[in-house]
């Protein structure tokens, strides 16, 4: 078991012929992810990834003709909201949006429309998800993982890789690693993913990587205190971030004194979750919590 993606995933990549789409689709395919289609309007009938994947003009064709059941969006910010809506209309119920820089008001509309259609959206501005040894969707490097029993959820990209690498180096393997995205409006919250890990029998412990801005970590802490009995470890980035400045991620901003790293650390600790001072401490915290 694992969450979100596995060997049954039949992925369509939206924007597969672009530079990013092509590069990361190759890595996904090499990892073993079943990519059944690509969509680039105007390039229908061609093929991508050296003839290995058919390209369609529309998502409707990708779903009806290639049987796609999940989508990964690499379309640039100006077109990404429309690409997500098209995927939902075509019947896709799991969308990963990697695209960075989508205006928040556009995302508000997409968020609620997709929610009404029962679509699970991960991102935008996220690295995707990898179920170790089964499938990876997005841009997380495949070579940093080791199969195991720990689920990881994060708002970040390279920081996620850093923590996964530290775990792998210490012999602590993973079930699924999910990046939920660094934007203020994302489709899936920490709580959503924690709930999935909590219910996944293969996942025995959970790592959560948060950062300044918003109150998702505080909400997650409350959820964990109530629902989660699996061992956990956490890290929060941005203890030295100045207030009122956007720290790269559109969502990483301390505003009106709210959203500080300290507030999130305290909330997590109050929920009984061990909080690391450095990503390198995560494996030891997991071991101390009983992870083999």
């Amino acid at each position, binding site marked *: 078991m694992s969450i979100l993606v596995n060997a049954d995933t039949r992925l369509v990549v939206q924007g597969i012929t672009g530079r990013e789409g092509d590069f990361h689709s190759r*890595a996904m395919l090499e990892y073993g992810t079943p990519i059944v289609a690509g969509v680039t309007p105007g390039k229908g009938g061609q093929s991508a990834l050296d003839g290995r994947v058919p390209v369609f003009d529309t998502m409707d064709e990708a779903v009806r003709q290639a049987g796609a059941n999940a989508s990964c969006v690499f379309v640039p*910010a*100006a077109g990404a909201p429309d690409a997500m809506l098209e995927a939902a209309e075509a019947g896709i119920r799991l969308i990963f949006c990697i695209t960075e*820089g*989508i*205006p*928040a*008001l*556009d995302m*508000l*509309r997409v*968020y*609620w*429309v997709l929610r009404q259609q029962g679509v699970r959206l991960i991102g935008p501005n996220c690295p995707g998800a990898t179920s170790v040894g089964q499938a990876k969707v997005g*841009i*997380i*490097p495949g*070579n*940093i993982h080791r199969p195991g029993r720990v689920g990881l959820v*994060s*708002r*970040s*990209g*390279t*920081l*996620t*890789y*850093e923590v996964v*690498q530290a775990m792998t180096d210490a012999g602590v393997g993973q079930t699924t690693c999910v990046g939920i995205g*660094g*934007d*203020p*409006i994302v489709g899936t919250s920490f709580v959503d993913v924690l709930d999935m890990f909590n219910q996944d029998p293969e996942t025995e412990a959970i790592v959560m*990587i948060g*950062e*300044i801005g*918003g*109150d998702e970590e505080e909400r997650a802490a409350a959820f964990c205190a109530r629902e989660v009995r699996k061992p956990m470890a956490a*890290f929060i*980035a*941005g*203890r*030295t*971030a*100045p207030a009122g*400045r*956007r*720290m*790269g*991620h*559109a*969502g*990483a901003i301390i505003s*009106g*004194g709210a959203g500080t*790293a300290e507030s999130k650390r305290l909330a997590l600790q109050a929920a009984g979750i061990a909080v690391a*001072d*450095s*990503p*390198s401490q995560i494996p030891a915290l997991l071991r101390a919590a009983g992870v083999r």
Partner: protein
Amino acid sequence: MKLQEFRSKEILARHGVPLILGEVARTPEEARAAAERIGGPVVVKAQVLVGGRGKAGGVKLAGNPAEAEARAREIIGLVIKGVTVRTLLVAPAAQIAREYYLGLILDRGGKTITIIASAEGGVEIEETAKTNPAAILRLPLHPLIGLQRHNVRRVSFFLGIPPELRSAFAETLTALYAAFIGSDADLAEINPLVVTDDGQLLALDAKMVLDDSALPGHADLEEMRDLDEEEPSEAAAREAGINFIKLDGTIGCMVNGAGLAMTTMDLIKLAGGEPANFLDIGGGAKADRVAAAFGIILDDPNVRSILVNIFGGITRGDEVAHGIVEARATLTRDVPMVVRIVGTNAEEAAEILRRANLITADSLDDAAAKAVAASRGEQP
């Protein structure tokens, strides 16, 4: 992107919010001339992007043009929370009968746009939230259909808008909403919205914060950016497509990815040092971008050492290492550099770096400790 009061007012006026724009002045003489054109008592207001300018003496009344010139002379050059006042807004002074707060925010938690209103205008809303939370109405709008007339009525009755001003208030709130949507704002607030002695509804002060991600679609709004108040190094970084924020420490950072960049800063602090900046170089870490990033970091005379932390992942570490060595050769000033590269061919990368006399590190903690030591002139 934060907008100055006069810029925010321009946008709000364009959408129909009732206000008197006044005139922008950059010298005491211009302030006097503006006051002459306006006629009657004026208020001279510092245009800065930091809060608390009233308390700092940045807002003053003037009864006539000569006084306006004198007040302008006092305010120009004033330093408010580290920002030197260069620009003034000269606007007619209003006789105030009542003051309200009226704002719209992008509500992350509720994932919608929320109206915030209070009959206690003229003070910062965060202050009211602490002292008298019951005086604030937070009204989330339907995320798909937006502001409806019943929303407007609810706010109007909550604030106790006098009956004769209800239709003017409805127009004001509708215009504020249109301005928010039309300019992709994160925040649009009128504080205070006043009823004048002669019964007019008027926006006396305004503040807007725009969504940076939406600016590429609003060339006219991008032009409203205040370059005076931006660190020159931050402006240069924006030109180069680099996410950069200047801080006060001595250890420069160059990292790929925002979360990892924040973590790198945190670990420098944990190792006893102070980061000089936040810098996310983005994906790929191409040689020209690395060179630009080094230039921006070294522009800060406080920088005593640099920590480069690149998690390559799929990217080849040796290519990144070559890029760093090449970029370093072009620099006019040199400081000790600690470089940590993770990715394919990390061993080859470390060899390239060592040959170029750069300090390498096995882990991020190790890199932070070495960068701190190097910043103090110690051999790491």
